[in-house]
């Protein structure tokens, strides 16, 4: 029996009252805690970790955490911070303690996400062809045709297997009641999968015994599955030439682009390596030009071809879109997928699932108020102090108001913006994301986390049993974005 468990028995609601290292500061709040149940006893799938942590001296935990950070630094998993002409490289903070998901929870997540990506792909095919869903009045036309992510150029263009979104990273959060709900879909160029794999590498080394005894499912085949997905998109069967297209070494996700190219054994290219002649895409090699069949692009739509999209872009390739339209190259994800992941369309996804698949959604959405609807707008304005308001087309935690944490002045300023352009905003109740044990100053404390699994969709739909868990490292903070002080954790999906 674990020590924390026995102590927690006498001190309901707060395992911290046990006062035993390393849980001296572990206070349960209103949020669902991944490790401890409300009565302070560790949940069964966390018991082994809970026990292990209680038996490790704090300096040993700290040593393992440092080993893990050094490993990231040496591997070059860093981003650059520029301040007074000194460029410093920092690692993305990574937390040693794994976040654990049970087999039953994962089964539900997997089924729910497969259902969701299927419906979203049906939706994309529909709005880029006949627009049946709009004729049936399920969503307002203006929401789609007025979206800045809708690409007219994609209309009536066939896409292999009707798979527009080939790589999707969906953010899930766990509500107070313990249910996983979808917070947002990332259908453009989702990143983070390299952290899923890199975290696994270091955490497996830090807790080898625990890892083996827990029956953690393997995720190492992700690059192979990604390669298979990309291959399935082209009719070319022999000598398929696949490339990962990166904006370059200054992009914050460059490590991931290089990592995936290396792990798949394909070429990593920049826009300047490619050229289009007679609607065929070539890479410049030492031996001459080499044809490219599939591009896994990690560049936004806007920058991919300056002849068609943004003129000022130098990251992409002139003529790429025409080669794509001619069917001579496959681009994954397809262009124009962003129209389906904005925050207004998000609120319709459960209805889209029913509409296209005639099924009930397996995973719920977070309750969402569309400010374009007058009734919702007045509700939002009246409850600004309780809600999170987000701009429809933004991501990465930008352009949002967290009502409960904002000052009166900030709320008033935001209310004015809302009234001026209600269509551009949605609002959601503040969700207490679940908390997971996290190493803080040698002790273990709860911190809020979300969960981003990656879904691959080509000829088949595949989920690797793992995810990028983001953690808000500041006490009490609910913002997990890496661009705003979030870190990451390894995610263990158990086989039973």
């Amino acid at each position, binding site marked *: 029996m674990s020590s924390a468990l026995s102590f927690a028995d006498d001190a309901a609601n707060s395992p911290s009252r046990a006062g035993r290292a390393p849980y001296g500061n572990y206070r349960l709040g209103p949020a669902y805690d991944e490790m401890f149940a409300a009565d302070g006893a560790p949940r069964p799938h966390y018991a082994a970790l809970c026990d292990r942590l209680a038996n490790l001296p704090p300096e040993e935990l700290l040593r393992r955490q440092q080993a893990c950070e050094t490993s990231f630094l040496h591997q070059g998993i860093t981003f650059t911070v520029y301040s007074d002409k000194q460029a410093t490289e920092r690692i993305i903070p990574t937390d040693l303690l794994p976040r654990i998901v049970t087999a039953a929870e994962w089964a539900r997540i997997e089924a729910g996400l497969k259902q969701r990506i299927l419906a979203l792909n049906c939706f994309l095919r529909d709005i880029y062809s006949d627009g049946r869903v709009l004729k049936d009045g399920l969503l307002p036309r203006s929401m789609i045709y007025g979206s800045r992510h809708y690409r007219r150029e994609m209309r009536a263009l066939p896409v292999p297997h009707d798979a527009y979104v080939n790589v999707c990273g969906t953010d899930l959060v766990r509500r107070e009641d313990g249910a996983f709900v979808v917070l947002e879909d990332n259908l453009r160029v989702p990143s983070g999968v390299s952290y899923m794999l890199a975290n696994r590498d270091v955490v497996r080394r830090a807790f080898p015994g625990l890892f083996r005894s827990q029956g953690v499912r393997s995720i190492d085949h992700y690059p192979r599955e990604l390669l298979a997905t990309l291959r399935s998109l082209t009719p070319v069967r022999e000598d398929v030439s696949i490339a990962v297209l990166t904006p370059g070494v200054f992009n914050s996700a460059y490590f991931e682009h290089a990592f995936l190219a290396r792990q798949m054994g394909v070429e990593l*290219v920049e826009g*300047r*390596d490619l*050229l289009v002649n007679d609607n065929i895409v070539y890479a410049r090699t*030492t*031996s*001459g*030009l080499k044809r490219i069949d599939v591009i896994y692009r990690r560049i936004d739509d806007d920058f991919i071809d300056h002849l068609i999209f943004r003129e000022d872009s130098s990251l992409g390739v002139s003529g790429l879109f025409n080669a794509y339209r001619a069917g001579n190259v496959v681009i994954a994800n397809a262009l124009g997928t962003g129209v389906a992941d904005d925050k207004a369309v998000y609120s319709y996804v459960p209805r889209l699932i029913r509409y296209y698949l005639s099924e009930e959604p397996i995973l719920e959405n977070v309750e969402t108020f569309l400010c374009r609807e007058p009734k919702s707008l007045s509700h939002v304005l009246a409850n600004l102090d309780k809600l999170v308001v987000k701009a429809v087309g933004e991501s990465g935690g930008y352009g949002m108001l967290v009502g409960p944490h904002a000052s009166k002045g900030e709320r008033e300023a935001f209310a004015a913006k809302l009234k001026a352009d209600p269509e551009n905003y949605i609002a959601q109740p503040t969700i207490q994301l679940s908390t997971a044990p996290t190493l803080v100053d040698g002790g273990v404390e709860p911190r809020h986390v979300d969960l981003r699994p990656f879904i691959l969709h080509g000829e088949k739909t595949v989920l690797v049993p793992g995810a990028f868990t983001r953690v808000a490292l500041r006490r009490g903070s609910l913002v997990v974005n890496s661009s705003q002080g979030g870190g990451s954790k390894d995610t263990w999906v158990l086989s039973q």
Partner: protein
Amino acid sequence: MLSRVADSLYWMSRYIERAEHTARLIAVKLEAMVEQSREDAESGWGRVIAALSAEQRLKGCTDTAAVVRELVFERLNESSLLSSLSFARENARQVREHLTVEVWENLNRLYLHLQSLDREENWRHNPSHLFRDALQALHALGGVTDSTLSHGEGWYFLEMGRHIERAQLVCRLLNLHFGPTQSIVPNTPTYFDWLVLLKFCSAFEPYCKVYTAAIRPEKIAEFLLFDAEFPHSVRFSIDRVCEALTRVAPAAPPGRRARVERLAGRLKASADFTQIDEVMRGSIARFLAEIADKCEQIHEAVYEAYITYGAETVL
């Protein structure tokens, strides 16, 4: 292989070679100084500074700590050890997927280590120890590159970069000892300087095996220029460059290779068939300049044929 990748590999390797050269010169010099008079020690720095192209920045500076700081850590000095390593690392980062974990981590670790030494300034206590360590790490990097990376086209670009750089650096070093460089270094070299020259090229023991410990300038020149087996001789480097040239761009049509191969053949002929007494009788400075110049021409021809060619020439 992508042209951009070839470019980065080539430069990564040149910068690593430059870093190794810098580390060795300074390590050898610091160890040698212990046995030298103050005057000799100072003039010796003159040669090291000139060999590392830092004459302008270090004009009149005789303080050892300041010289070492400039040659090793100064970022504004583009040929300092830390700058070379930083350029090597930036190139490596751009082609990370073409390197093995071992190659990247060895390079990255060394860079981060030196950078932290610079910040802490505690290298001053025992500098020669530090450079021996750095040299050791660079040798390990070379070994790991040879033993973990496939010897395919990319590896041959690394090999080409390393040896083009090495040939040019050795030529420059020889010129500073044999050529008319009085303006830079007033003293004519002494016995001790010849010894140090051999050590600058990690050639002391290999030289003794061929010519015994009798130190004779002409033999040193012969060894460092024309020895076929010693890895830091100019001829050895040229051989490696020529071999690499037959292995890169395997699918390029013969027409594209013609100029590169012609230039390489000529350079190899002059390294293989020139005799040291001809060189010593004539102007050694001119001979060295010719070699360095031909290396430069090969570099340009390689770029034109494989890396910066216009797309219209191949469509």
